[in-house]
């Protein structure tokens, strides 16, 4: 288990708190300049924050109060840099060998590592003779050769093309199951984070805003600031009203039922959001059975289809032209012959509505 | 209109004021020549431009047609070489003789005498430091020093102690270093007010002929300067600066 707490005001402002369990991938997400790489460097020992503490397993690696600061060599970390930083004058074999904790039995260990990253047979090549994806794997193998307590990946997929990236995602997923260490992945790509991470931590301007399972952070951000950071779609405002002892959401003329209303009071102005996947189309062709929760009516303004999902931009009536996005499978859109300008009705699932205080 | 234009142009090419005489002089004349030049400039309307350098350097430059009109050298060999190559114009003039001094700066403990016996003593006892001379290969003061050392019978023994300067002036400069006990320098330098207070010296018997010659292509003013060098006025200045002028008249 890796526990990190960092504070400093310059040269880069930091107010960080995060943790990562063994075998867990924590994605550290944020825009460029948010401080993600700085945090990673602090964990690696390449940068010393002014205040804080870094604990890995039972070992204290950094503690400003007791003036403790282990060098990178003293910490057991495996770091994969954004541009891999392979030693250009050494073969793949020697690149990995330098990182081995014990030189004994090196040939077998290197062969095992190369097999793990699917690079068997390439040990005599030089880095400039490898493709981007291959270099990346060597970097990972070199990081693992160190038998690290934690694996740090600094935007490892950013320098690779999309096709190779997909392949590497799958390989990382397989790999991590055999690794028993916390893995921290720094990325600015939310989709990548959502796909790979067990835990997602949002960082902005050096401050960690929220950490939790991706679904929670992405669709139930704690406040509006985080919501903006994770690019939440359907960010709207409304007022809470009391209806027969139950709190409901008054959004323009609509009164919406909401499931989670703990710690909320009537009369509060709030922000609310709902995942586009949880806004259900009232099908024209085959009317759905069951209650029609929170029905809203609107006119289709735009239809965007990508990878089998059609995003519908629905301009809701009587709401001053507010737009709600809903994602429907492409075949559903086709079957219902959705066209721009059509008037349709949709249900906003009440358990998917997430409320954030103002 | 055109006439005025031509007139103005010609003035640019042919300055109305007196011409400049370009003189190449060996470095041992560093102190006396400016005084001679000033006197000459007072008497005539001409202006003098002097270039000081080692005689060898100047000879090479003149051989390659450097625009000098008069060459003043302490080394007859160089003047002969120029004459052989047809670079000179007219006779060579012996206008004075220079003298050699054996000089030690203030810091030095060496005793100075005309026979250079202190050097022999220092060599024997191993207490002798460095001795500066101009390069005997090409500098006349160096050659004179070599002659004096050979006469004293210590030329071979003193080899390891010799500091060889590029020219006579640098030899003077070397003697200022605390690593140097003494040096063979132009007498005309050591009697200058500047140097008199910085050390002591003894005049040696060697005489170095100072020669002057016109370079081919020299103009009339240059000839006038050569004549001036042989006048009483010039002689008295030369004597005051430590040169010897034979009274031939």
């Amino acid at each position: 288990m890796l526990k990190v707490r960092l504070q400093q005001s310059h040269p880069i402002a930091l107010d960080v708190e995060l943790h990562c369990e063994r075998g867990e991938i924590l994605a550290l997400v944020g825009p460029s300049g948010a401080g993600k790489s700085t945090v990673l460097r602090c964990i690696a020992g390449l940068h010393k924050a002014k205040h804080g503490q870094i604990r890995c397993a039972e070992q204290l690696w950094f503690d400003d109060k007791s003036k403790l600061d282990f060098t990178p060599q003293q910490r057991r970390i495996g770091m994969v840099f954004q541009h891999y930083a392979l030693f250009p004058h050494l073969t793949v074999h020697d690149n990995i060998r330098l990182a081995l904790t014990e030189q004994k039995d090196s040939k077998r260990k290197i062969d095992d590592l190369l097999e793990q990253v699917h690079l068997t047979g390439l040990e005599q090549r030089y880095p400039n003779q490898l493709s981007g994806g291959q270099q990346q794997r060597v970097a990972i193998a070199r990081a693992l050769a160190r038998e690290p307590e934690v694996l740090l990946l600094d935007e490892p997929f950013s320098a690779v093309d999309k096709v190779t990236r997909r392949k590497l995602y799958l390989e990382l997923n397989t790999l991590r199951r055999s690794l028993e260490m916390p893995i921290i992945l720094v990325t600015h790509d939310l989709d990548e984070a959502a796909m790979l991470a067990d835990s997602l931590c949002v960082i902005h301007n050096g401050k960690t805003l929220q950490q939790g399972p991706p679904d929670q952070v992405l669709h139930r951000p704690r406040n509006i600031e985080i919501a903006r950071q994770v690019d939440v779609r359907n960010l709207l405002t409304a007022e809470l009203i009391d209806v027969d002892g139950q709190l409901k959401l008054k959004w323009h003329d609509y009164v919406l039922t909401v499931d989670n209303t703990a710690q909320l009071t009537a009369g509060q102005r709030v922000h609310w959001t709902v995942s586009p996947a949880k806004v259900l189309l009232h099908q024209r062709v085959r009317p759905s059975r069951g209650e029609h929760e929170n029905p809203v009516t609107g006119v289709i303004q735009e239809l965007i289809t990508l990878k089998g999902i059609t995003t519908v931009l629905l301009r809701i009536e009587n709401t001053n032209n507010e737009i709600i996005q809903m994602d429907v499978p492409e075949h559903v859109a086709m079957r219902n012959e959705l066209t721009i300008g059509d008037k349709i009705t949709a249900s906003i699932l009440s358990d998917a509505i997430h409320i954030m205080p103002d | 209109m055109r006439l005025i234009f031509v007139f103005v142009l010609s003035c640019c090419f042919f300055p109305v004021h007196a011409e400049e005489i370009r003189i190449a002089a060996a470095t041992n004349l560093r102190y006396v020549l400016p005084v001679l030049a000033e006197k000459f400039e007072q008497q005539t309307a001409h202006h003098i431009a002097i270039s000081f350098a080692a005689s060898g350097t100047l000879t090479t430059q003149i051989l390659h047609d450097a625009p000098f009109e008069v060459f003043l050298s302490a080394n007859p060999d160089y003047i002969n070489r120029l004459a052989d190559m047809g670079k000179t114009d007219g006779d060579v003039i012996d206008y004075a003789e220079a003298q050699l001094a054996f000089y030690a700066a203030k810091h030095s403990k060496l005793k100075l005498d005309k026979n250079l016996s202190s050097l022999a003593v220092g060599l024997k006892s191993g207490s002798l430091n460095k001795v500066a001379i101009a390069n005997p290969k090409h500098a006349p003061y160096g050659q004179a020093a070599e002659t004096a050392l050979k006469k004293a019978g210590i030329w071979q023994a003193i080899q390891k102690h010799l500091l060889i300067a590029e020219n006579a002036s640098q030899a003077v400069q070397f003697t200022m270093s605390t690593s140097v006990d003494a040096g063979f320098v132009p007498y005309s330098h050591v009697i200058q007010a500047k140097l008199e207070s910085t050390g002591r010296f003894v005049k040696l018997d060697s005489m170095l002929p100072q020669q002057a010659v016109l370079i081919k292509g020299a103009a009339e003013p240059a000839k006038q300067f050569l004549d001036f060098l042989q006048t009483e006025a010039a002689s008295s200045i030369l004597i005051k600066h430590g040169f010897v002028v034979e009274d031939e008249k």
Partner: protein
Amino acid sequence: MDWQAFEVSIKLALLTSASLLPLGLGLAYLLANSRFVGREVLEAAITLPLVLPPTVLGYFLLVGLDSSSFFGGLFVSLTGHTLAFSFTGLWFASIIYSLPFAVQPMLRSMEAIEPEIREAAWCSGLSKWKTFFKIELPLAWPGIVTAMVLSFSHTLGEFGVVLMIGGNIAGETRTLSIAIYDSVLAFESAQAQSMSLILLAIAFVSITVVFLFNRSRSRVVSF
């Protein structure tokens, strides 16, 4: 052909470049990898001999190496010999004079190493020393070879400084360039020519070797 002067020149050049190897490496490493107050001033000071007229350097050395100066006096008390007008004095002067020729190429090649590579080495468990010898040195090798050859050639060609502070002592401070100058002044053209050709040949060969070496090296290490 003054073989003694040739020997003095070669000895001086070899000794100077050998001395500049550790000195230059140390300074280049310091300048490449540290950020400290006065870093630019240090770099300027090291580069100074490049733009300083040899006569200026010669003047300051003349004063600084003199037995009456602190440094010169210290040397006399330690060794019994004077520092001025000695081979050792020339060696010191050459180190200063050729310093930028050694430091600049080494510094450039070290700066060209991406900081991430050093950091990757540290994260892989290599100490700073090991990183230097196994990673930085091999990568900066072309710059180091260039530095050595340049400082060798530069020292071989030294003239102005040697003229001012050498004293032209046969077998000790009479270098080949001084011997050439003497021969020219004494109108010994044959001697002057043969010695000049030898210096020219050495300079040309060494520069060519540097270029060939750098070209072949860059084919292996391109990233």
